[in-house]
């Protein structure tokens, strides 16, 4: 082998290695930055980051349910089940943070299990609106029942989080607490997504009859996805309850649910990371739009419509296109842009 060839080969090898490890490096870099930010951020932005972490758990767990093809409209209420569970357990049983958070997850999972019984009878659109109605039922119970849910005023004076005598409530420890819980939750859901169970979920989305015929118990796996998703929504709810110190039914209303859907639609649900990308982008846009507070739902309503009509795959569907664009010479790119534009023009 001549020298130049050898050089070319090692170049190729390092390129594939780079491609292989690039995502890992990127992930490590993001995590490192988030660790540093935990100390460096201004209080307002740190609060924002904490909410962001909670929302990451929400979108990831929501996406977990959608892998079976079921779009739920009750996810925020299941988060609320976690919040109420956490608040009540922490307040009345006086249990520590480390026990309360998983118990909140279990509370939400139990509520989710109750939901899924009628919901299994529905699919697609019916699932969507039936889950909405079921969620409203639970929310109305919170509004209505004074003991123990506190009615419209909700639950106040939730004890601050503590673990083996360590107070987690100051901003910096709480930032890292949420950060770690988020990492653990996302990691577990990522493992599930990659597992045989995750594949069974996706196969149901792809062709439920075929899945059933090759031995996958569709009802069981749909339930499993819904209940697992509810569990993690409950964990997110527990963190929210601790952060706010008080919760009430309005925290879990329809508007919040629609925002969750906007995050997921903007990001896309085909890939594991899509919803998180959507959350990041919408959160940034949300902050920028602070001066236009009252117009905000209108803007995001428009964003939702725009994405569903013009980019139904979400931002993630652009990733391969961006990757291709970087690899193709500019002349071809121009050509491609022109064909895209003409087809786009003819469609509208």
């Amino acid at each position, binding site marked *: 082998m001549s020298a130049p060839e050898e050089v070319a080969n090692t170049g190729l090898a390092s390129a594939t290695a780079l491609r292989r490890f690039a995502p890992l490096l990127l992930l490590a870099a993001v995590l490192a930055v988030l660790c540093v930010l935990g100390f460096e951020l201004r209080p307002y932005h740190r609060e924002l980051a904490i909410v962001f972490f909670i929302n990451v758990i929400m979108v990831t767990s929501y996406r977990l349910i959608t892998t079976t093809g079921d*779009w739920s409209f009750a996810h925020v209420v299941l988060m609320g089940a976690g919040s109420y569970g956490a608040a009540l357990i922490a307040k009345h049983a006086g249990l520590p943070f480390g026990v309360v958070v998983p118990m909140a997850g279990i509370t939400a999972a139990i509520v989710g299990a109750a939901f899924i*019984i*009628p*919901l299994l*009878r*529905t699919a*697609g*659109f*019916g699932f*969507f*609106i*039936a889950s*909405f*109605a*079921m969620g*409203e*039922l639970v929310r*109305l*119970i919170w*509004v*209505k029942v004074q003991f123990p849910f506190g009615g419209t005023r909700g639950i106040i004076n939730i004890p601050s989080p503590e673990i083996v005598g360590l107070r987690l409530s100051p901003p910096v420890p709480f930032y890292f607490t949420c950060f770690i819980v988020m990492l653990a939750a996302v990691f577990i859901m990522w493992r599930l997504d990659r597992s045989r169970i995750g594949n069974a979920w996706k196969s149901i989305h792809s062709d439920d009859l075929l899945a059933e015929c090759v031995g996958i118990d569709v009802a069981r796996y749909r339930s499993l996805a819904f209940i697992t998703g509810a569990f993690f929504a409950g964990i997110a709810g527990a963190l929210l309850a601790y952060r706010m110190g008080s919760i009430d039914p309005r925290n879990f209303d*329809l508007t919040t649910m*629609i925002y969750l*859907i*906007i995050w997921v*639609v903007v990001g896309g649900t085909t890939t594991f990371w899509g919803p998180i990308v959507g959350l990041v982008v919408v959160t940034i846009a949300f902050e920028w739009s602070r001066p236009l507070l*009252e*117009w*905000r*739902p*209108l803007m*995001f*309503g*428009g*964003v*939702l*419509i725009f994405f*569903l*009509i013009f980019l*139904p795959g979400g931002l993630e569907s652009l990733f391969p296109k961006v990757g291709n664009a970087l690899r193709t010479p500019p002349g071809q790119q121009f050509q491609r842009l022109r064909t895209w534009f003409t087809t786009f023009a003819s469609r509208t």
Partner: protein
Amino acid sequence: MDTVTLIQTLLNSVVASSIYALVAVGLALAFGVMKMANFAHGEFFMVGAYCVYVLYALVGLPFPLAVILAIPIVALFGLVAERLIFRPTRKNILAGFMATAGLAFILQVLAGQIWGVGIAKSIPTPYMGAADVGDATIGWQRLIVIPCAFAMLLALRFFLYRVKLGKALRACAQDPEIAALQGIRTNRMTALAMALAGASAGLAGALMAPIHSVTPYMGHGVILIAFVVVIVGGMASIEGAILAAVILGFIHTFVTTVTDNLIATMVGVGFMALTLIVRPQGLLGRERA
């Protein structure tokens, strides 16, 4: 429950059933044709109420005229939603449905920005006084809801069963491909279905404007009830929607009288969950082959 309360409650049940039927019938109709599901249906109701607020309370038109004008105005909203949202997303009904959640946001903000978010708009009651039915009394304003809703539903029925265009709409709902083979233009039928859905929701909102408090967010409660009614009735079945509206209207009113509004809503949703378990296709829905 004494006789007076009983009569009172029965009358209120009929009023509630009428409104439920008006709201749900449009939703079922649009779902039947090309599976359009409109999350902003409650906001159409809200727009109908604002029409009366503007035309009657602000402009000073007579109340009946304001109500009648609300019908085509909201029908226009239905047409626009069909053209801008449902037609581009026809291949994916879930996407169309979620997009209308965005539309709901937009209509709420617009109503809030134009007429103010804060307090509910108060509309002077056009028909004062009350009718005596036995020993019970019921306000005229409530009572007129019944004939108006009946008239609208009868007109709709007449249109669907006696007019060629209406029959074509039903044909399209039953088998769009075969309807196209008869020369029926499915695009027109979907537009028509959405216009009718808007019209009936608009009328319901207009009739409720003097009774209900008019706010940009009044659609929320309406859409929940409408969905429950449509699911119980069997999604695409108009007759099912009306039957379910009557059942749920009575349940809601009676439970409200005995306990309160919130519990009544809960019972309604519970009834839906029960229906799904016992009879997933709904009361009059057809079983999937």
